C-alpha cells in the first residue's frame, strides 16, 4: 500500500479500532485505576485522505474510533448490538432496526432513524460514486440509484422506510439472514452521518463528525496527526483511554522502527518484518485472527489445469507450514477450509489431505493425470511484499512436481488487476479476500458468485454453487445458515477449483506503554479498550 501506500494489505487488512464492547471493556475497566485515569495512545496509520466512512479505503482505524456501528462482532465471533437496540426480521427480507435512545453526533444533534436512512440514500446515490457504496447493494432500490445508463430518476431507495424516531425498516432484494452482520464494524458505509455532512461532504471530510466514542478535535490536514478525544456524551461502553492520536506514515517499516524507539504506541507489522517481529518485540507482538484468506488462483480457462488431480497435486506440493515459518514468522495459519476460520461455522479441516503437504502423493497424482506440459508461471502483484511467498511456492512446485515453475511480479497493482481481469494469464495467480464482516457468506460470495466482490479471484462460477449460497443466505437462523454455508464448501471441495493457502492474521506491535491490546472479529486492535501499562 504500501502507500503508499497504498499498501495492498492496508486496504484489505486494515479493519480496526472500535468501541470496547463487553468483555474487554469490563475486564479492563471495573475498579481498575488505569482505566479510570484514562491516558492517551498514539497509533500509526496510513494517511486516510478520505476520512468519510462511505469513501475511505484505508481509514478503518480512525472510522471505528469516531463512529459506532449498529452491531459489533467480538473476537469470538459473537454479535452484539451497539448503536442499535435490536435488528429483527420474520422473513429475513424486511428488517426492523431499532436504535438506542439518547445517542448524539459529536455536534450535539441526535442520531435518529432519519439520519440512517438519509445517509444510506446519499451513499448509494450512483452519480456521487462513493467508493464503499457497494456495501448497500443488497437493499431494495439500490439499482434505481445506480442505473446502467443515465441519471437516476430518484434519490431514495424504495427499501428504506422511517417508521419512528428511532425505528426504520430495511427491505432487501431477497432474503438475507446475514444482514445484522452486514451492519457491523467493518462495513463503514453503514455508519450514520449528521445532516450537516450531507450538505457539504468536503467540509465533513475535513472535520468528520461521528456517533462514536471519540470525536475529532481539530481539522484533518493531509499528513498531519489526527487528534481525537473521548466524547463525553457517548452512550456506548466507556473507552479506556481519553484520547487517541492517529499518526500517518507512508512507510509501514518506518512506523515499525518508530514503535521500537518508543515514539509511537501501536503499528501494524509490515510483511518484511513478520519473521523478526517476535524477536524484536516478544510479548509486545500481537497477532489477531482476521477474516482474510489467500488462495493460489488457478487459470481454469487453461486446459492444463482442467483435471482436478492436477489441482490437487499443486495443492499437496505446497508446504504451507514451512512457508508460514519462513515468510510469515509462523504468524499465519495454514488454510484447511475455503473460508477463514474466524467466520462462524467454517468447516475447518474440510480440505483434508489436499491441504496437507505430501510431495510423493502430489507427484503420483500429477503422473496419474498425465503430467504437466510446459511451465507453471505464477503471476502476482509486485511492490506489495508478496515476492517471498510466491517465489517459495514456485520453488516447491518445481522441486516436488518436477515441473519448471517461476513466479513473475507485475509492475504494480493496476497492471496485475487489468491482466487478471482480462484473463491474459496462463498460470497460477495471486488470489485473496479480506471479508469486511465475518460471515462465510462474504468470503463465499466474493470467490464463488459472479459479480460477488472479487472479480476473477479464482474465478469459478457454477450455477449450483451460487444457488446453494443463495439458499444459505435465506436462512434466518444463524446456526442453520452457518451449516448451509458449510454445505456449500462441501460442494466446492468436490471441484477443488483452487488451493486455499492461509488463514490470514494481522500482526501489531506496541510500545512498552501498552499492557494489552484487545481485538475484535475483524482482526484489528480495539483501541478504545486498550489497557495501558501502569504509569504510562
Amino acid at each position, binding site marked *: 500500500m504500501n502507500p503508499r501506500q497504498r499498501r495492498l494489505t492496508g486496504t484489505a487488512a486494515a479493519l480496526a479500532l472500535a468501541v470496547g464492547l463487553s468483555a474487554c471493556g469490563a475486564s479492563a475497566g471495573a475498579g481498575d485505576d488505569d482505566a479510570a485515569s484514562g491516558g492517551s495512545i498514539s497509533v500509526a496509520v496510513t494517511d486516510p485522505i478520505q476520512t468519510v466512512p462511505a469513501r475511505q479505503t484505508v481509514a478503518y482505524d480512525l472510522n471505528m474510533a469516531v463512529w459506532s456501528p449498529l452491531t459489533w462482532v467480538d473476537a469470538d465471533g459473537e454479535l452484539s448490538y451497539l448503536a442499535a437496540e435490536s435488528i429483527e426480521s420474520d422473513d429475513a427480507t424486511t428488517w426492523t432496526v431499532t436504535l438506542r435512545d439518547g445517542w448524539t453526533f459529536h455536534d450535539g444533534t441526535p442520531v435518529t432513524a432519519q439520519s440512517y436512512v438519509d445517509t444510506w440514500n446519499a451513499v448509494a446515490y450512483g452519480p456521487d460514486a462513493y467508493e464503499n457504496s457497494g456495501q448497500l447493494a443488497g437493499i431494495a432500490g439500490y439499482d434505481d440509484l445506480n442505473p446502467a445508463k443515465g441519471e437516476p430518476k430518484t434519490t431514495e431507495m424504495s427499501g428504506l422506510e422511517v417508521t419512528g424516531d428511532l425505528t426504520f425498516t430495511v427491505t432487501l432484494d431477497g432474503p438475507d439472514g446475514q444482514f445484522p452482520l452486514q451492519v457491523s464494524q467493518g462495513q463503514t458505509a453503514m455508519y450514520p452521518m449528521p445532516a450537516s455532512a450531507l450538505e457539504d461532504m468536503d467540509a465533513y471530510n475535513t472535520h468528520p463528525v461521528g456517533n462514536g466514542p471519540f470525536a475529532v478535535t481539530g481539522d484533518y490536514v493531509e499528513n498531519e496527526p489526527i487528534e481525537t478525544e473521548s466524547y463525553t456524551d457517548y452512550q456506548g461502553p466507556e473507552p479506556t483511554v481519553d484520547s487517541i492520536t492517529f499518526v500517518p506514515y507512508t512507510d509501514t517499516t518506518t512506523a515499525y522502527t*518508530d514503535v521500537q524507539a518508543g515514539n509511537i504506541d501501536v503499528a501494524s507489522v509490515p510483511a518484511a518484518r513478520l519473521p523478526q517481529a517476535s524477536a524484536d518485540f516478544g510479548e509486545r507482538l500481537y497477532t489477531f485472527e482476521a477474516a482474510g484468506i489467500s488462495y493460489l488462483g488457478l487459470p481454469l480457462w487453461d486446459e492444463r489445469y482442467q483435471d482436478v488431480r492436477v489441482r490437487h497435486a499443486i495443492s499437496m506440493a505446497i508446504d504451507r507450514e514451512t512457508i508460514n515459518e519462513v515468510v510469515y514468522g509462523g504468524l499465519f495459519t495454514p488454510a484447511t477450509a475455503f473460508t477463514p476460520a474466524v467466520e462462524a461455522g467454517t468447516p475447518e479441516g474440510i480440505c483434508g489431505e489436499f491441504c496437507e503437504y505430501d510431495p510423493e502423493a502430489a507427484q503420483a497424482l500429477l503422473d496419474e493425470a498425465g503430467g504437466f506440459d510446459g511451465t507453471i508461471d505464477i503471476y502476482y502483484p509486485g511492490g506489495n511484499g508478496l515476492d517471498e511467498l510466491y517465489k517459495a511456492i514456485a520453488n516447491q512446485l518445481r522441486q516436488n512436481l518436477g515441473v519448471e515453475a517461476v513466479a513473475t511480479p507485475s509492475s504494480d497493482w493496476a497492471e496485475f488487476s487489468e491482466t487478471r481481469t482480462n484473463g491474459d494469464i496462463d498460470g497460477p495467480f495471486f488470489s485473496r479476500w479480506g471479508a469486511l464482516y465475518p460471515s462465510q457468506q462474504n468470503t463465499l460470495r466474493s470467490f464463488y458468485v459472479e459479480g460477488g466482490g472479487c472479480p476473477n479471484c479464482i474465478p469459478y462460477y457454477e450455477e449450483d454453487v451460487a444457488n446453494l449460497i443463495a439458499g444459505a443466505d435465506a436462512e434466518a437462523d444463524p446456526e442453520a445458515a452457518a451449516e448451509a454455508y458449510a454445505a456449500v464448501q462441501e460442494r466446492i471441495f468436490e471441484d477443488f477449483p483452487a488451493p486455499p493457502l492461509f488463514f490470514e492474521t494481522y500482526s501489531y506491535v506496541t510500545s512498552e506503554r501498552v499492557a494489552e491490546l484487545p481485538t475484535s472479529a475483524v482482526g484489528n486492535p480495539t483501541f478504545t479498550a486498550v489497557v495501558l501499562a501502569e504509569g504510562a
Partner: protein
Amino acid sequence: MTRRVARRLADLVVVFLGVTLIIHLMVFALPGDPIAALGGDRPLAPNVVAELRERYHLDEPVLQQYLRYLGGLLQGDLGTTFQGQSVADRMALRWPVTITLALTAWGIEVLLGVLLGLVAGLRAGAVSDRLILAGTVVATSIPVFVLAVSAQLWLGARLSWFPVAGTGEGWPTAYLLPAAVIAVFGLASVARLMRGSVVDTLRTDYVRTLRAKGLRERQVVGVHVMRSSAIPVLTFLAIDLGYLLGGTVVVEGVFNLPGVGQLLFQAIRAHEGPTIVGVSTALIVVFLLTNLLVDLLASVLDPRIRHE
C-alpha cells in the same frame, strides 16, 4: 544580459511543454486502470469505477486529456487527484518540507564539504588527506536506501539521538538525520573538488608571493586561497541544490517526511496523472532555474564568461 535571460526563459517554456506532454504520454502508457486499482484487492463497484473514470476524464483520448490539462493550467488549475483534492494545494502543503530538507542537506554539504576539502588540500598526501579520500569514497558507494535505513535504526531507534521519523519535532531536530544522509553524496564531491582547487591554488605564483611577503599563513589560506578555490565549488553547489530538491524521494519515504518526493512516489503508484505531471514539472522547472542562476552567477564571478 537581459536578452540572454529572456532567451533562456523562452527555452524554459518549450522545455515545459515538452516535458508535460512526455510525462502525460508516459502516465497514459502505464498498464492498468488506476480507478479500478483504487480499492486495492477489494474492487470498487463497476458503476463507481465508470462514474469516477468519467469524472476524471480518463475515458478521453490522451491528447484531449493533455489539452484539457494545459487549458486548466492557463487558468492556474493544476488539476485534481482521484480523491478530488487540488494538486496545487497538495503541492503547496509539501514544498516547505522538501525545501527545508534540501537546504539543510545543502548547508551540511557546504560546511563539511568545504572544511574537509580544505583540510585535505592543505595536507595533500598526508594521512588525514588519505583518510578523507577513503572516507568519502566509502560513503558515496553506500546506496542511499541502506544508509538511510541504517542511520534510522542505529542513530534513531537504538541510540535515540534523533527522531526516527516525521516532522513532528520541527527544524532542525527532525531534519538533521535525513539531511545528513542526503548530504553524504554531494559532500564527497564537494570535498574532492575543494581539495583539488586548494592544491592548485597553493601552487600558484601569487600564493608564493603572498608567503614571500611574510603574510601570515592564516591569512593566506583564509582569505586568498579560500576565495579563488571557491569558484568551481560554488558552481557545483548551486547545481547540486537542484538535484537535492528533486532527489529526496527515497529519504522522504524512509523518514516519513511529507515532502514532494513522497507525493510523487505515491502518485506514481496510483497512476495519478495530474499529480505526477505537476510535481515532476515543478521539479524540472526548479532544476532549470537553478541552472540558469548558476550561469548568471558564473558570469558575475568570472568576467571572462561574460563576453562569450
